[in-house]
């Protein structure tokens, strides 16, 4: 029996062994063969040692999630082999260096196939020892008889900057390992990969890269951030593009400085943001209120990880939802967006700036480690640059400023709560504003009548914004009896669960979370047993939904061990419901 183009690879090794670069390279090689991939990363908070993995699922159809079953395991050391061999399905293969001190019999127990390959010997013979990972990938491709041309292609791309000799040596190593594994193990191995002819060119993209790309395309001109996993790759991506695209990137001294710098940059008119995770966001909270009361547009990307405190620094969680909805003392309007897919994360990149400038208030993009770091093949057109609009709201133009005749009121009372905005630099609109309560001009005042009107004005923006909050999306038949309710990064896994439920389930997925689209939620959730699925302990979204709509949720499936749900996890949880 042969299974073609439907399998999962898992590369496991210590930090520093090149798991990530090998995984990403392999994923790219598969994508270039027209196959769809989903790449899940799991790494530990250390520079060397421990166990990291890169799990790559492959199919001919688009993939949105990983699954539990592993068909080919590539352990780069003995610990990796022993920890993960039980994940390999019966008949699946374990490719490891022939020099590892393990008993072949113990590797092959449970009907698995032990596939020792002299990876280090091959690397040394045809190149250098450091190319053992290339040998492992070559062997993996050999076992499943995937196109060596595609492998060679990506080796050329990835090693190009190291020079032609390094490229040639890696090619020799990969080919030798490919042939070795193919000759010995392929005939007897069930899973195969075939490149697809005429498949369109696709992108392989991670969530954070998509977000940064969206921000850049949407006119982000300033980012200040302090490195914090899993948000760091946002400023890193933009820093790499600083020169060519004219975006200022500032690695600040701490998160308080980072958010304050972004507020300062935005105050003078640049589209500005900061990016952090929960711990850094905790430090930014006071400044969030500053942007709120002074009506400064601000975009904050909060990429969640396991908390509280340092928590699980490199793992995923959705436990900051209620925190970001309420963070800060006092009351002011804020918008919270929680993208569910890489495409939505891209869109949030530019849409967040439009919303921030339209409502002149903070916009929080709430994602997590899973969405930030997982890789997917994406159709070129699905990252839609044509859809991008740049809407700066009531920002006064140069000619409007020239035409001003009266003293400019930065915080003018208005029906929709939004005041025409000038930034520093024009002689007709010289003004100061304050984090103290202020009047329409920005002057500090404690007058109670002004306070009431100013509170009403600012909070009115939330009502104005509510109209453009997106309704939840539905996947699966409307009449399905089981309603999976999710938000943010669980979109992918829940979508696949709906597919596997075969007509019995539908997904209602929330992306715009605040102001909460209550009316649309009530409509979308009519009929069926409601099951919320969340990566947190306390059912934060369930609480939000219930408090905003009075809809009772019937069942909750939660996971709070820092790991992403697999479809199998959710299906197991659903057994109790049915």
């Amino acid at each position, binding site marked *: 029996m042969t299974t073609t183009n439907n399998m999962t690879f898992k590369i496991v090794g210590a930090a520093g062994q090149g798991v990530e670069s090998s995984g990403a390279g392999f994923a790219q090689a598969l994508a270039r063969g027209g196959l769809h991939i989903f790449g899940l990363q799991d790494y530990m908070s250390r520079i060397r040692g421990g166990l990291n993995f890169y799990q790559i699922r492959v199919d001919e159809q688009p993939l949105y999630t990983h699954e539990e079953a592993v068909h080919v395991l590539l352990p780069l050391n003995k610990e990796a082999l022993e920890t993960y061999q039980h994940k390999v399905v019966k008949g699946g293969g374990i490719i490891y260096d022939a020099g590892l001190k393990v008993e072949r019999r113990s590797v092959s127990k449970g009907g698995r196939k032990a596939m020792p390959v002299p990876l280090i010997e091959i690397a040394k013979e045809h190149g250098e020892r450091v190319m053992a990972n290339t040998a492992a990938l070559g062997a993996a491709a050999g076992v499943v008889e995937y196109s060596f041309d595609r492998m060679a292609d990506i080796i050329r791309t990835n090693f190009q900057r190291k020079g032609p000799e390094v490229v040639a040596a890696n090619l020799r190593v990969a080919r030798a390992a490919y042939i070795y594994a193919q000759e010995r193990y392929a005939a007897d191995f069930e899973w195969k990969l075939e490149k697809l002819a005429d498949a369109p060119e696709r992108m392989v993209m991670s969530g954070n890269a998509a977000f940064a790309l969206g921000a850049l395309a949407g006119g982000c001109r300033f980012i200040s951030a302090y490195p914090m996993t899993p948000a760091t790759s946002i400023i890193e991506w933009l820093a790499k593009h600083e020169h060519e695209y004219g975006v200022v990137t500032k690695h600040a001294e701490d998160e308080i400085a980072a958010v*304050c710098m972004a507020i300062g940059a935005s105050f003078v008119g640049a589209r500005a943001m900061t990016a952090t995770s929960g711990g850094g966001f905790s430090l930014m909270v006071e400044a969030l209120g500053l942007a709120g009361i002074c009506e400064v547009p601000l975009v904050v990307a909060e990429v969640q990880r396991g908390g509280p405190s340092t928590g699980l620094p490199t793992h995923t969680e959705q436990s900051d939802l209620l925190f970001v909805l309420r963070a800060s003392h006092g009351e002011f309007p804020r918008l919270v967006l929680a993208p569910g897919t890489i495409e939505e994360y891209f869109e949030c990149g530019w849409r967040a700036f439009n919303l921030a400038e339209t409502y002149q208030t903070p916009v929080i993009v709430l994602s997590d480690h899973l969405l930030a770091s997982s890789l997917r093949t994406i159709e070129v057109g699905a990252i839609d640059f044509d859809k991008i609009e740049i809407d700066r709201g009531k920002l006064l133009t140069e000619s409007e400023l020239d035409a001003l005749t009266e003293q400019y009121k930065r915080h003018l009372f208005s029906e929709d709560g939004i005041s025409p905005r000038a930034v520093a630099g024009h002689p007709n609109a010289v003004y100061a504003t304050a984090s103290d309560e202020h009047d329409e001009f920005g002057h500090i005042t404690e007058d109670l009548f002004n306070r009431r009107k100013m509170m009403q004005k600012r909070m009115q923006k939330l009502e104005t914004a509510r109209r453009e909050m997106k309704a939840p999306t539905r996947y699966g038949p409307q009449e399905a009896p089981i309603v999976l309710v999710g938000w943010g990064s669980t979109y992918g896994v829940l979508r696949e669960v709906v597919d596997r439920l075969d007509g019995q389930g539908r997904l209602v997925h929330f992306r715009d979370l605040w102001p909460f689209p209550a009316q649309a939620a009530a409509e979308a959730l009519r009929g069926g047993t409601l099951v919320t699925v969340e990566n947190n302990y306390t059912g934060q979204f369930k609480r939000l939904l219930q408090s905003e709509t009075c809809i009772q949720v019937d069942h909750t499936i939660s996971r709070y061990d820092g790991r992403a749900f697999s479809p199998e996890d959710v299906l197991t949880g659903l057994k109790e419901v049915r």
Partner: protein
Amino acid sequence: MAATVKDYASPVKPTWCPGCGDFGILNAVKQGLVQAGLAPHEVLVVSGIGCGSKLPDYARVNGFMTLHGRPVPVATGARLANHDLKVLTVHGDGDSMGLGMGHFIHTARRNLDITDIIQNNQIYGLTKGQYSPTSDPGFITSTSPDGSAEMAANPLALALAAGGTFLARGFAGDVKGLAVLIAQAVQHKGYSLLDILQPCVTFNRKNTYQWYRDRVYKLEETDYDPGDRVAAFQKALEWGDRIPVGVIFQTELPTYEDQVPGLENGPVATRKLQKLSRKKVASLRAEFI
């Protein structure tokens, strides 16, 4: 037409106590900006929280009264986004040397072209009289009834150690001299610090106008050379019977903004926003294929 002090007049009447050193500082800021040839719309004054931090409300300037301890990073963002603006921060000793101490050191070593003005009255005024990071040891207040047991923070010595390129001390009782120092500070290319000795007439009964008048002397009237960093350390540490005012240290180094690749084509805040060209979109997409 050059701006005058009148152009800097705000309709708002200060809430400061009669005789407060903040009045002298407000007048000196206006005069200094006029001397530097700046008009109000060209200036952004970012302040923190405290009596003196209300200054932007009392002058007609672009102003942003921010959070306690945080005006410096806000000013940093503003300057990095629009380096056509002359950016000043104005805040007290609690703001700058308490919560803001970390930002202070990093900003001094960064040599971003902003002017950092510390209204240093060695006391917390707005919260009614607690000792501050710059209070002298032994200073008795409501939170130090037995006298402060800490060394006083020294803004000039700290900024000098961090690599600040223009460091000066002024006295709120000498508005004319202070205005000249402010003009010099804003005209300096790079980070400039102005530590201003300022009496708090209500809560600081020790460091009064008379106390300062008995002690301050002008460095410009001596043969002191502000180009010598080691000598500057000695001057920065001089405190007691004689207190030097004037420029303690000045040097020229490349500014931070001159080294930011994203600013090669001018300020980002005033650059017109437009969608990416087809060519740029194609090139960005190609990075992922």
